[in-house]
């Protein structure tokens, strides 16, 4: 079993290495490890809630491989769009000018797909869940740079801030336990939003 909290601790230690002149390699690994800590924390939460699997079981080990980084990021982006979207405007009266109907249709069609699909007046992600999504998106970008961009250079403060982001993600994931949209979020992390109608 991959221990997300263990990864977070290692990320923190890597970011603190070499007190006078930190090595770029250590800072890069700190950022990458911080991302993986939150990545695995989300996967474990999804497995527990939807497969009811002990994270240490062989079933969980296999199912954990079904999650994809890019799709998880897109789900988090959709969650942010959903959380931040303005409430849909009321539909114009039947005898309203055609332009008002067109404008309303445009607004409807450009709403976030989760908002459209789940009903405009329904639940929204809680601030805690929104923060989890935000942490993941932030760390995803940082990890791409840390792992793949040879020109990317990190300061220790930056690396520590990214580790801090992962820690916030852990805390907010725990704090979102009562959010009614949390189960959907965790389900979508596996299925992706591709199955949700709309663009």
């Amino acid at each position, binding site marked *: 079993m991959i221990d997300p909290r263990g990864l977070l601790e290692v990320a923190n230690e890597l970011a603190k290495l070499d007190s006078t002149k930190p090595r770029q390699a250590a800072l890069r690994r700190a950022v990458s490890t911080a991302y993986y800590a939150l990545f695995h924390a989300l996967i474990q939460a999804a497995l527990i809630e939807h497969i009811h699997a002990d994270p240490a079981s062989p079933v969980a080990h296999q199912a954990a491989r079904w999650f994809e980084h890019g799709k998880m990021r897109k789900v988090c982006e959709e969650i942010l769009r959903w959380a931040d979207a303005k409430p849909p405007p009321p539909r114009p009266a039947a005898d309203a000018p055609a332009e008002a109907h067109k404008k309303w249709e445009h607004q409807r069609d450009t709403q976030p797909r989760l908002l459209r699909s789940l009903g405009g007046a329904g639940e929204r992600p809680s601030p805690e869940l929104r923060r989890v999504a935000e942490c993941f998106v932030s760390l995803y970008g940082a990890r791409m740079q840390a792992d793949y961009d040879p020109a*990317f250079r990190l300061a220790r403060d930056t690396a520590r801030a990214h580790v801090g982001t992962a820690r916030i993600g852990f805390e907010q994931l725990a704090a979102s336990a009562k959010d009614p949209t949390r189960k959907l979020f965790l389900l979508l992390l596996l299925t992706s939003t591709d199955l949700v109608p709309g663009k």
Partner: protein
Amino acid sequence: MAWYRPRMAAPTDSFVTLDDVREALEDVRKQFEATGQSIRFLDPVLGVDATGERTLGVLAVVKDELARTPGAAELMLDILDGVRHAFDEHGLAVWPSVSIIGESDVAALDEEPSP
């Protein structure tokens, strides 16, 4: 900045230009400075990642004492939020990656040769 270059050329079909980015960042800077915090942004970098998604790398420079607190992560997320909303207001869609750095570390990084 020599230490932070685009890893790929900016996409030619992008509907987000560097001018758009600078304008959005200026909005964020004004909002932050209105709260009494000092912030500046280094050269933003537009690019595409390995999956073809547009990317935006933003480096925010703040005072050392702010960058070195545990609250730096919260600040980074707030900046990310601010940048994203600024883009929304301009009708632009891009997903930024924000890093935060203290003033004194900017100079330190510049002194080091790129790997």
